[in-house]
């Protein structure tokens, strides 16, 4: 009799386990419902065969979220070493080398850090593979930014000097120190990349990190800001000759400092828009 009870219990559990109300899959979050911008820092490399799939996923997400998603492609680590017989330039930068140490080594490539947050119960900022990025970005886009951010740039073609002005107002009081980081990225650089079909010599690299204008960990923006406080900072930066000014993005973001590095709000603009 007891054995029969056990068998019935197992069968009941099994049958009950099969039925559930399945979650509804919504359409992508509409832009009018989005109050903030999300930074995705993708770690990539020219000898990383799976990285073009990661870059394609970013372009797909840009097609959905548009300006609300700001990508940066950081060439750093094992797979970023240029191929001696194929590469014509080295995408690695001091800034990228700093960031891979600062944000943590990827467990596999492609990998990305989203808003510099520990997400999905992870003990690392790195999120891999690319299949996980969309859901995390969607979660971040649902949040409300505690500050507004306006970005304005001016560029002098002769001196190649740019003026970067960032300003805004805090809509929420926060405790602790907040930093501002300004980065420069270049688009549409044709350079060989290893792909699943072999080497692609016409591959267009996008959002490639070229430099950090501020300190690598950002410059002080505010300390325990109160609701209604405003801020304004400006930077001058001379664009190196080898970079194409028409393909440069300027990216700024405000973020926590210390144990947590959470990005609170971000903005970007094409230098010669």
């Amino acid at each position: 009799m007891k054995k029969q009870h056990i068998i019935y219990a197992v069968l009941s559990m099994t049958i009950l386990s099969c039925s559930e109300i399945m979650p509804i899959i919504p359409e992508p979050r509409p832009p009018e419902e989005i109050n903030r911008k999300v930074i995705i820092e993708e770690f990539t490399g020219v000898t990383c065969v799976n990285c073009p799939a990661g870059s394609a996923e970013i372009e797909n997400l840009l097609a959905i979220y548009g300006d609300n998603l700001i990508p940066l492609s950081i060439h750093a680590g094992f797979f970023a070493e240029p191929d001696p017989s194929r590469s014509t330039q080295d995408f690695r930068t001091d800034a990228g080398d700093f960031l891979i140490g600062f944000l943590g080594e990827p467990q596999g490539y492609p990998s990305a850090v989203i808003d510099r947050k520990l997400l999905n119960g992870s003990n690392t900022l790195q999120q891999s593979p690319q299949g996980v990025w969309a859901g995390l970005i969607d979660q971040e886009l649902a949040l409300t930014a505690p500050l507004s951010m306006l970005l304005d740039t001016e560029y002098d073609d002769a001196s190649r000097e740019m003026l970067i002005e960032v300003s805004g107002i805090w809509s929420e009081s926060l405790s602790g120190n907040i930093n501002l980081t300004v980065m420069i990225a270049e688009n549409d650089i044709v350079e060989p990349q290893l792909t699943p079909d072999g080497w692609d010599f016409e591959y267009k690299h996008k959002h490639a990190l070229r430099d950090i204008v501020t300190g690598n960990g950002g410059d002080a923006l505010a300390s325990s800001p109160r609701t209604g406080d405003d801020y304004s900072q400006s930077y001058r930066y001379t664009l190196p000759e080898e970079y194409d000014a028409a393909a440069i993005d300027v990216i700024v973001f405000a973020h926590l400092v210390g144990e947590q590095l959470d990005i609170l709000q971000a903005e970007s603009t094409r230098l010669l828009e």
Partner: protein
Amino acid sequence: MRNHLLACLLALTFAGLAAQNNNQGTISGSLELNGNFFIRDSAIGAFNLPQYDRQLFGADAWMDIKYSNWGFDFGLRFDLFNNSNLLNPQGSYTDQGIGRWYIRKQLEKLDIEVGYIYDAVGSGLLYRFYEVRPLAIDNALNGVKLGYQLTPNIKVKAFTGRQKRQFDLYGSIIKGMTIEGFLSIGADEEAGKAGWSIAPGAGVIHRTLDDNTVDLLVGTIATYTQADRIGAKYNVLGFNAYNTLSVGSFTWYIEGAYKSGEPIFDPFAPKQNFDGSTSLGKFLFEEGYVAYTSLSYAMKGFGISAEYKRTDHFGIRASPFASLNQGLINFLPPMTRVNTYRLTARYAPASLELGEQAVQVEARYSPSKKLSFLANFANITDLDGGLLYRELYGMATFKKSRKYQLNVGIQRQQYNQEIYEVKPNAPIVEALTPFFDFSYNLSRKKTIRFEGQYMNTEQDFGSWLFGLVEYSVAPKWIVTISDMYNIDPKRTEEALNYYTASVTYINRTNRFEFGYVKQVEGIVCSGGICRLEPAFNGLKLNVRSTF
């Protein structure tokens, strides 16, 4: 913090119990420690990692303590990872804390276990909670397990908990139940009659994802075009049934398992993007199946076994976002022999959860005490018949008691590097590797051993030559030197040597090994789980101690 409190509590309990019981209980334990001193060598690719660039030193350590008394077993393990490359061979991981604790109690027919539990059902196809330190796999279940002996030959067990994730836990809840039996008929030892026996079993496992993970999944699928849209689910359910039939010298094991449909990530599935392009990698909604069987026959001087496995989208993980070796709940057994010589072990296939079909046959024949032969054949294809791995292995052993032993053999391998190492357009590695292993006893305590292997291949790094000399003075000392030489290099301009030299000192239950290691990039496997390890150059220290 909770773990530290528990550790203190358990440590105090150990001390208290030992004191109360005048040390009549038993305390035992073990220590394992690895120290790595990294020396940058750009010629072999040992660079551009934090350990080579700036950290220079790394260590991993595990210390277990067990105390048993009054029918209780208590266990505690401290884990340490300093600049470790075990979790991520391309990165550096640092953390330490209580890696495991448990309490077990037997109450007549009832077994109780709480804490971090290791266990498996059948061959592990449905679930296997286990630890593999060289791959940083520690898939313990943090929860409770009950076992009950229904009859002398039938036992049921049930468990629930959450899977370990380094020093944290996955959000999903896992629960399961198994029933196992044993029946022997016709055996009569006095009459010398073997009879036959069966050991059937069945299991069920159920995993419920946490809300946050499902939200992520929904958010991810929401970005798919209608062509790729699938549903999301909280629950997955798996069943298995298995049996071992023993009749005389024959043993036949068969196991089948099924899991209900759920989203699983296929990195090679084409995805239609919103901008009209196509990329690789998306979630698919798939049910999973796996079947495994083995048949073996053994008699004096002869034994043969055959295995077959078919896997179709059968991977159960604690999270659909867990990848590589992380979050595995089930285990797919490997279908190739475990090779131990350096070059014969160079190409080893991992079990592929998305789809594979594998067969393996192994035979041993010993016509006398001095002579024995071993032959092995393994063949693994994808579900469409595309070759993934094939191995033919033959070895003969000549032994003259207490004086020498000689193993000579040859291995033929075909290894799909494109699939196993995700290297596009990489041709199938075709390798032919003759080898020998000769050990000669110079005296009652002193032994010298020579190993030699030559791998002939036109693919990957090209051909290799490997030689090893090992001198041991039992029971305390072992000195080993070896060189792996890329005799016909295909990936480097010059032929490189990979030297290794080590000294091992054994003092009763303490073992110390220290050496210089230069190691080429390669696949490291344990069971059916493998991963690509970057090249290594540096000093290694290994300490093992039991008490």
